[in-house]
């Protein structure tokens, strides 16, 4: 031991062993990292960047500054908290900006964007954009005032609130999509953020519903999956493997196939209703509505996510020795209390892993709720898709997406604490 402090170990060619080893280790590190680099670069560019782009879009607000650059400058001095209208130069800049914007067909677009924040602005901008050139010519020929002409053209230009919106959204970085995503509103005058009245809260309610339905699905998969996993784990391995294949088959079957089959089974003219009518349990008029509502979403998603619960439960149960239960019973415990006090606690890691997995998957589900959820059984993801493809409010879609992502990451962090990322296994 002490020799290392007094002598320096040398390699065959006379170099210090320590330095050679260090160099060698650094080279191996580099080699390992080089092997990972292509994929790391691919994932960062092809996956992380798009997510960051979404993050940027959720706060990005360049449209006012780009479309009305002179107006933004002119409004710098104006006090949005007061009650006076901006001065003549601001009106003149707006008129100039709008003529150019109309030329590039951007006035309507801007109006649509601002309409998300203050309804009525879409029509104001559309109308003003269309007529601004005439108005400017009129002011020039009569040497009149832009302020008076614009207010005479549309009284909304005489309202301070319209100008407040313009001034507010002159900022290029705004949190307003997030306020909207959380059903909050920023007062135009005082800048105070407050919750909308409960009737107008769409997104908080939708987030709440997504979480509640997801919890219900998680509970349902646990209740159905636990006995099944227990049974399979207790069977001799030949039969157990056969049953496991039966669990894996739906797991490997296309998501759309399974959703289609639930539509076929549950719809009002479907297999289950027909069967119940044929047996005489239901009358022809009393056919159950089991799909295109919350029930449909819960049934179909419980089925789709059940394997994600059974597989981790099974792998944990497989490792619990049956002799523990026998020992407890031989020591006088009632089988039920032996099960509850000895067997059940050892399955908790499996329950945790399965439940968090099912919950994470469920909360971001889109396809199944979209197809079987009707109006009441849809999730926050369906709303995100709606804003992307129908309402075209991309900023709000991005903000909702980021909020959902934050939630999932928080649960995932919990998963890592409980189960550990390295313990993710497949099949």
């Amino acid at each position, binding site marked *: 031991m002490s020799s290392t402090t007094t002598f320096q170990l040398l390699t065959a060619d006379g170099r210090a062993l320590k330095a050679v080893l260090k160099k060698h280790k650094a080279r191996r590190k580099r080699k390992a990292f080089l092997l990972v680099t292509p994929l790391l670069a691919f994932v960062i560019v092809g*996956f992380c960047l798009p997510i960051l782009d979404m993050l940027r879009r959720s706060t990005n607000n360049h449209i006012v500054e780009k479309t009305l650059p002179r107006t933004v400058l002119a409004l710098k001095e104006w006090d949005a908290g007061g009650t006076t209208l901006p001065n003549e130069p601001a009106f003149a800049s707006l008129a100039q900006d709008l003529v150019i914007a109309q030329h590039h067909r951007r006035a309507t677009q801007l109006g649509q964007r601002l309409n998300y924040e203050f309804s009525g602005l879409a029509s104001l901008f559309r109308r003003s954009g269309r007529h601004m050139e005439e108005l400017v010519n009129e002011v020039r020929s009569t040497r009149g005032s832009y302020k008076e002409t614009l207010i005479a053209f549309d009284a909304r230009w005489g309202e301070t609130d319209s100008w407040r919106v313009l001034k507010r959204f002159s900022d290029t970085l705004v949190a307003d999509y997030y306020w909207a995503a959380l059903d909050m509103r920023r007062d135009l005058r005082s800048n105070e953020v407050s919750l909308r009245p409960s009737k107008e809260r769409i997104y908080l309610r939708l987030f709440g519903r997504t979480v509640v339905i997801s919890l219900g699905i998680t509970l349902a998969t646990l209740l159905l999956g636990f006995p099944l996993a227990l049974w399979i784990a207790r069977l001799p391995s030949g039969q157990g493997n056969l049953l496991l294949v039966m669990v894996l088959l739906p797991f490997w079957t296309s998501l759309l196939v399974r959703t289609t089959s639930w539509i076929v089974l549950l719809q009002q003219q479907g297999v289950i209703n027909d069967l119940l009518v044929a047996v005489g349990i239901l009358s022809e008029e009393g056919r159950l509505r089991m799909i295109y509502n919350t029930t449909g979403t819960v049934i179909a998603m419980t089925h789709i996510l059940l394997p994600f619960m059974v597989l981790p439960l099974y792998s944990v149960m497989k490792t619990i020795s049956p002799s523990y239960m026998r020992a407890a019973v031989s020591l006088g415990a009632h089988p039920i209390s032996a099960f509850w006090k000895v067997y059940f606690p050892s399955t908790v890691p499996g329950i945790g892993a399965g439940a968090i997995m099912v919950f994470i998957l469920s909360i971001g589900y889109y396809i199944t709720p979209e197809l079987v959820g009707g109006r009441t059984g849809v999730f926050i993801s369906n709303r995100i898709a709606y804003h992307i493809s129908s309402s075209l409010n991309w900023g709000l879609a991005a903000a909702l997406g980021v909020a959902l992502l934050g939630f999932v990451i928080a649960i995932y962090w919990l998963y890592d604490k409980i189960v550990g990322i390295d313990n993710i296994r497949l099949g």
Partner: protein
Amino acid sequence: MAFFPPHLSLIERSWYVGFRLICVSVLIFLLVPILVIVPLSFNALPYFTFTPEMLAFDPKGYSLQWYREFFTDPNWQGAVRNSVFIALCSTFIAMALGTLAALGLSHADMPARSLVMGLLISPMIVPLIISAVGMFFFYSRLGLQGTHLAVILAHAALGTPFVVITVTATLVGFDLTLLRAAASLGATPTRAFFKVTLPIIFPGVMSGALFAFITSFDEVVVVLFVGSFRQRTIPWKMFSGIREHISPTILAVATCLILVSILLLVSLELLRRRSERMRGISRH
């Protein structure tokens, strides 16, 4: 139950029976959607329920018309071609990059291992709708929205975590002396990789590739956002079919997809056994 003593009381006996009943019903719940869709796909009438002729096993109640439609309709055939092409390309990218990365990650000297691992498997954790929205913004900005390339790259990103995880799992317990032996016998590192490492990790690579393949083959959210009609895949067609007018052709397609999944399941099971055997040998 095996862990109850043999002298069972009546309550215990009924519990024994009741427990099995519960389990069997859960199994039926799991399998019934698949079992129902297969016979219905042979329905002679465009209904989604069993007709009296079908229940009487009358041959007139059955027909192959929906299969004929699936195999002759150019629209569906285009979807099949797109699905296979996109899945094969994205699987190839995922397999190549994922295997390399797994080799690096299994090195004892890999720096910042858990951070890198977290980044690499993030496509598996982030909800699909968020990945799809992000990629939609990203590929629109690059002008690639609505191209095969965008869908392939997006699917490859979604598939890589599976390859990384399965290959890393096969590399656990990989005997490094084998590589040293190869080197001492004069093999270059490349030759040693192809002659020694690859045959051993091959089952892991293949099962990762199967996971990547099915991820792409079954994926619809990203295709909906990043792709367009020209990139329509089988799930894309099924999704729009269910939303607009559901035709029994979808049931025929679904039955074909069930066959595909059975094939995949069997191949995975064979690969798993092979992997256990190979690694069993390498341990001695």
